[in-house]
Each structure stands twice: as C-alpha cells, then as structure tokens.
C-alpha cells in the first residue's frame, strides 16, 4: 500500500499504538521482575500447547467454512427480519461462557433436545464432551463473528458490479469466481486468524466440554501457575509462549490478506436483483434457517431457564448490574475510539500492535497491573478502573478488525477527493469518516461493550464488596447452591449484554 500523507491522526495513532504496547509489556515485565526471571516450559506445557493449537485451528476452520454460505445468503437476500437476524449473529459471541455452556447443554447435552430427537429416531445418544464438544462450542461462539466479517466483505463489493454481472447474465459460478472469490481471498484469512487467536485463549469452554486432561490449554496452565503454584516465572513464560503464537498468527494473516481490489462504487445501498432464484433461493432459506436454529436454540434455553429464577433476585443485584453497565459502556466507547485512532494511523505495524492484546490473557494483564499498582495504592480501590482498562485492551483487537478495514475503504474510495477539498483533522472525521463508518463503529463498540459485560476475569483479582460485576455475582450464587437465582442472573446478563450490543449496533445503522 503506497503511503500517502496521512490526513488525520497519523501521529496520534502512533502514540496510541505505543501506549497499547506499553500497557501490554509493562504487566509482563512486572511479573517477570517479581518472579526473578522465567523458567523453561516442561513436557506438560508442550502437550497443552499442542492441544491448544489443534482445537484453535479446527474451531477457526469450521467456523469460517460454515459462515461462508450464511454470509452469502444474508448478503444476497432481502427479507423481513433480516436486520434482526444480523443483530442476532452478535449474540453468542458475547455470552459469558458459563451461561453459554448451560444453553448448549440444553440443546446438545445428555438430556438435551438433540439426544431426545435421536432417541425418538432409535439412535444412540451423542456425547458433547471431547474435542468435538470444544469445537462445537467454539463454532457456536465464533461462527457468527465470521459471518459478520464476511458479510461486511460482501457489502463492500460495489453494487454496480453485481448489476453489471446481472446485465451480462453471468451464471452464479462466474459471479462467484469474478466478484465473490477475490473478496473471500481478502477477508477469509483475517477471519481465520482472528478466530484462531480467540480460541487460543479458551479456558472454561475447553475444560468443561473437553472431557478431561486431554483438553488442557495453555490458558489453564497459566491459571494453575498463578492460582495454585503461585509460580510467577512459569506464568510469565507461558504468557510469552502464548504471545508468540498469536503474534505469528496475526502476522501471517496480514501477510496473506490481499488488498481488496473491488474498486470504487457509488456508495449506494446494495440491491441484489441479480441473486439467483428458484432452487438457490430455497437453499439460502435452508442455510439461514439452520443458522437461526443453531444460534437461537441455546439462547432460548438460557431465557427459559432464567425466567424461573427471576423472582429470587438477591440483594446487591442492581448494584452489580450498575457496575457492569458503567464498565461496559466505558469500555465500548474507549475501545471504539482507540481502534479508530489506531486505524487512522494507517500503518501496518500499528494495526498489528492493536491486535496483540488478544495474545495476553486477562489474568496475566490483571496480575501485572496488580503488581504495578500495589506499591502505590491499594489495588482494590482501582477494581473497576482496572477492569475497564483490561476490558478495553481485550476488546481492542475485535474493534480494530471491524473498524480498520472500513476506514481503509473510505480512505481509498473517497480520500483523494477529501484531500483535494483540504478536509483534514476533525473536519475530515466529521464529514468523511464518521458518516461512512457508522455501521463499523457501532458494531465494534457493541462488541466491546458486550464482551466487557460478560467478562469474568480481572475483577476476581481486585474485587471487593462494592465492586462486584454481574458475572462475578452469578458465580457467587452458584457457589452458594443458588442455581435458580444464578440462572435468573444469567438471563439478566444475557439481556443486558445483548441489549447494549444491539443498541450500539443498531445505532450504527445499516450493515
């Protein structure tokens, strides 16, 4: 990509990137310093690494392969409820793990719907536990994310091209080869790498559905090093290993991502009169129906179960919900703003840096900050601030993957004109970027807010009575045998996460 004079925020973006780098390296350094150095990984650590890589690769592959037909159907059909369906694709990704697993079990568990149906058909029950269970859960979480990434790719192909293809009466396979395949070549590697990186950090899902020590992940090894062994050196070493893999994945993804060569369109809503009808229409309908059932089944299960617990809502619930909301809204705004600033620098290395938080577990970040804060101020006083900071960092890669390509496209298509008009700085932001990037910004902020709402990581390190968040609240209830109340809190958590996501996402406008 030829570097042009950067119109807005070049220096600001570089500064932000360096700040992010500092926020990531400082905790690692603090842990290593406190530990007095790292230790070499043992045999069990290597086994954990192998399993982690395997399940992440499988999860990424299956998620993206399944997402292609769904995104394609969404891109070329217009129907009532399409908008709602697109918003629904944001839901699984943002569910707190323990809520989502309950939902998945209601559908796929031993007493679940699927096994009931198999039983009626006289077939043996299937077990959800094992590598396939882990992949199934990760696909449930991440396939919708892949759909959204691909859908943005499809939307970015100028409408004029599809109209031309329709006028030339090109068969679907030629449309695919000439228009859709180049887009997929550009978007798929990024989606694969993002989901791969997300699954690397999987801990609770891999453990609950993995079926045993076979399903050990690096994240579990980090957890053990911190919690049971208090072996900071080993934890820091494992964090570095994880960092290295994700950095490699991110670099590979950026390298294989080819510049999107669709060219400029006239920025009009895409009307797909070219979409083939007949059997193709039925096929798309079938694909979408399966996707809706797969995504909404577990969500409905969570809702159905949670309703029973709603009349048992305990004290302190609304305070926890309020804490969660404040943290989530702050995280959403800060993460989207930071991602926009980084994207505006329009430099590859800045973007790579922005993806790096994915490589560090929240536990590592939290522990590092704890060590840094402890000599200065009682860390519990910073509980919510720390949680917000870690959540912003954790959400940044997702925001960036959504926002950076959108900004790139706007700059490529309209940048030269804006340059001629002398639109710079805030004016460029106001008149050029924000109007065209609203969907991406809204989706990015929605993801960040909802992710932060469901996060249960850092808060446990810092929490004190006034500063519990909803997921923590839910865990405490389960620990006190209050399973029904916990299910009710789970439903509330689902509604708040999804509500916040939908608010930002719909606020962003069409996608």
């Amino acid at each position, binding site marked *: 990509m030829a570097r042009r004079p950067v119109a807005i925020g070049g220096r600001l973006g570089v500064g932000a990137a360096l700040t992010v780098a500092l926020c990531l390296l400082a905790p690692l350094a603090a842990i290593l310093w406190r530990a007095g150095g790292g230790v070499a990984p043992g045999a069990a650590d290597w086994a954990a690494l192998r399993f982690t890589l395997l399940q992440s690769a499988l999860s990424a592959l299956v998620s993206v392969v399944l997402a292609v037909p769904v995104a394609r159907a969404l891109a070329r059909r217009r129907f009532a409820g399409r908008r709602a369906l697109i918003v629904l694709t944001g839901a699984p990704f943002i569910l707190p793990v323990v809520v989502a697993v309950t939902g998945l079990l209601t559908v796929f568990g031993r007493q679940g719907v699927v096994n009931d149906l198999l039983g009626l058909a006289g077939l043996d029950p299937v077990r959800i536990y094992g590598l396939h269970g882990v992949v199934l859960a990760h696909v449930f979480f991440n396939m919708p994310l892949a759909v959204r990434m691909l859908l943005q790719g499809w939307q970015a192909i100028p409408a004029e091209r599809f109209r031309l293809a329709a006028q030339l009466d090109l068969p679907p396979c030629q449309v695919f080869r000439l228009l859709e395949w180049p887009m997929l070549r550009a978007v798929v590697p990024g989606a694969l790498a993002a989901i791969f990186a997300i699954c690397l950090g999987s801990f609770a899902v891999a453990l609950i559905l993995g079926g045993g*020590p076979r399903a050990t992940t690096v994240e579990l090894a980090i957890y053990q090093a911190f919690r049971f062994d208090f072996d900071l050196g080993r934890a820091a070493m494992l964090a570095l290993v994880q960092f290295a893999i994700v950095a490699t994945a991110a670099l590979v993804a950026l390298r294989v991502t080819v510049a999107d060569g669709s060219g400029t369109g006239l920025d009009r809503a895409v009307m797909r009169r070219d979409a083939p009808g007949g059997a193709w229409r039925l096929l798309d309908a079938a694909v979408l129906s399966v996707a809706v059932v797969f995504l909404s089944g577990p969500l409905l299960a969570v809702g159905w179960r949670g309703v029973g617990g709603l009349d048992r809502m*305990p004290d302190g619930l609304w305070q926890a919900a309020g804490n969660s909301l404040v943290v989530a809204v702050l995280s959403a705004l800060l993460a989207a703003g930071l991602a926009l600033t980084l994207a505006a620098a329009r430099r590859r290395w800045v973007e790579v840096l922005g993806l790096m938080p994915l490589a560090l577990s929240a536990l590592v970040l939290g522990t590092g900050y704890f060590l840094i804060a402890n000599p200065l101020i009682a860390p519990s006083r910073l509980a919510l601030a720390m949680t917000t900071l870690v959540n912003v960092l954790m959400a940044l890669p997702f925001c960036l993957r959504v926002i950076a390509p959108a900004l790139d496209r706007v700059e490529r298509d309209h940048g030269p004109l804006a340059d001629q008009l002398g639109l710079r700085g805030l004016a460029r932001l106001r008149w050029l970027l924000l109007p065209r990037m609203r969907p991406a910004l809204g989706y990015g902020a929605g993801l960040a807010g909802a992710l932060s709402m469901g996060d249960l990581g850092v808060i446990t390190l810092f929490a*004190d009575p006034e500063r519990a968040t909803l997921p923590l609240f839910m865990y405490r209830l389960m620990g006190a045998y209050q399973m029904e109340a916990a299910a009710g809190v789970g439903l509330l958590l689902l509604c708040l996460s999804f509500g916040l996501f939908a608010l930002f996402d719909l606020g962003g406008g069409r996608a």
Partner: protein
Amino acid sequence: MKHLICAAGCLAASQALAADPVLTVYTYDSFNTEWGPGPAIEQGFEASCGCDVEFVAAGDGAALLSRVRLEGPRSEADVVLGLDTALIGAAAETGLFADHGVSAEYDLPIAWDDSRFVPFDWGYFAFVGQAGADHPTSFEALAESDRSIVIQDPRSSTPGLGLLMWVKSAYGDRAGEIWEALADNVVTVTPGWSEAYGLFLEGEADLVLSYTTSPAYHLIAEEDDSKVALPFDEGHYMQVEVAGILESSDQKTLAQDFLTYLLGSDAQAVLPTTNWMYPAVLPEGGLPAGFETLIQPETPLLMSAEEAQAARDAALDEWRGALSQ
C-alpha cells in the same frame, strides 16, 4: 474513568473519618452472599466489638491465597478466612501469617494443633447422586460400574485437589491404577465446583464430586430429599476450612477477638445451614434438623500439610497420565 477514582477516594475518606476501627476480612466468593454465613457473622461480631467488619471476597480459596501473596506485607487484610488444608502448607511458607493465639475445644474427627491457622468448619468430600439407585460403595466398585461422574480439575479447584488427595491417601501407590480404571467413568472435568454441580443438576452425569453435606442443602433449603451422598468403604477425605491472621495487620487484637467469636456458639450455629459444612466447635443447640440424615464416614482421611505438599506434584502427574489416555 476519573469519577471512579474520585468515588474510590471519597470512600477511603469516609472510612478514615469513621471512629470505629475497621477489620478487613478476605474470604471466598460464596461466603459473603445473602445466603452465605457472612452477613450474620458480620452483624453478630459488630454488635459487641465496637468495630466495622468489612468482608472482601476474592475468588475461591486458592485465589484468596494468591491475592494475599500478590499483596504481600502491604495487604489491607487483617484476617484471611477460607483457606483449606490443601493450601495451609503453601500459606505457611509465605511467612505472611502470624500465630493466632486462640484456643478452643474442637469437635473435629482429627487432632488440631496448628499455631497459625484456626479451623472454623469442615466437611467430607463425597460423590453425590440421586436417591434410590443402587450406588457403588468404593472407588473400585465405581470404576467397575457404568456410573458417569463429573469431577473438578485439581489444577484449578480445591475439591478437585481434594479428590486427588483422597485417592492418594486411600490407595497410595495404587492411585494411578485406580485413576486408569476410573477414566471411562469420567464424563468431564470442570474448572470449579459450581460448573460441576451445575452439570450434575442438569443430568449430565449420575454422580458429582461434592460434600457429604450437599444433600442437607437440598433437604433443608429446598425440601428435596432426592439427593444422597455415597458412603465409600475406603473412608472419606476431609476438607478443613481455616482462618488466619496476617502478620502485617494493625488490628491483631481485634482479629483475635474475631476468631474467638468465629469459634463461638453464635457463629458456629450459622455455618451448617449457610456454608453447608460441619461446625468446627459444636454449637450449644447441636446440629440443625436434617443433618442426622447425612452419612457418617467411619474413616476420616486427611494428609498433613507437609504430606499433601510433598504428594501433590506426583499425584497430579498420575492423574493427568491416567486421564489423558
């Protein structure tokens, strides 16, 4: 974010203005919930101490210890409540705990003479299942049966570690063999107790590793007698929950008074139906109705802190090896 820091500052200021000294007690998550023992114990002690008790929940027992280690001598905590016998060795090694100087006539199945940690309640680990079924009565019978079990990971949870120690102390060198035989009964391994018990209640497994007192919760709080704990011939491993005073505390006398209150009849009477464990000192009124229905293991098993420390790594390797096949 600024207003959060301001709010934190205001809170600190208001605490400084209050006349009463503050006793900060770090504990695990479920202790200080509406249904946990926290509120009653806080109220009871505050009635006489002229102080302000502040509970700080910090994850589970293991997370609690990590937090104290992270904070080191700068910790704001005066008392740490909720470590267990598996963690005492590591906790003592930190050198952060002071001698408690509290004595009591414990009603524990074992002798207790630790100068730094006071036991406040205890229980036996046990597999819990549905009443009415013909359940196995030993690990060997369980391994031969087709009962499915869900257990916790010893690398992330204290009950998981307890089970590891249970098998180890019952079978010694044969522990690896027992785990290999159990492997096909294990449906899955969860990160913590909550997830495992949740899976069991969902019907994902016939049995779950929990406590002999778990059925008492269902019986007393939910009037549901459908859950039973399985008595095992080998005996049952114990979990003793302890509290300790931090060396860095500036409220040591108050902390001692708190531990004395914790072992008194009022506080001990609260524990069975809030924490669902046995009291360390039998309260005047005895155990609540319903506890007499629980199984009474004849052979209590418990390794000393040193034994448990020494056995852990090898036992973990055996466990991992057997279940990775």
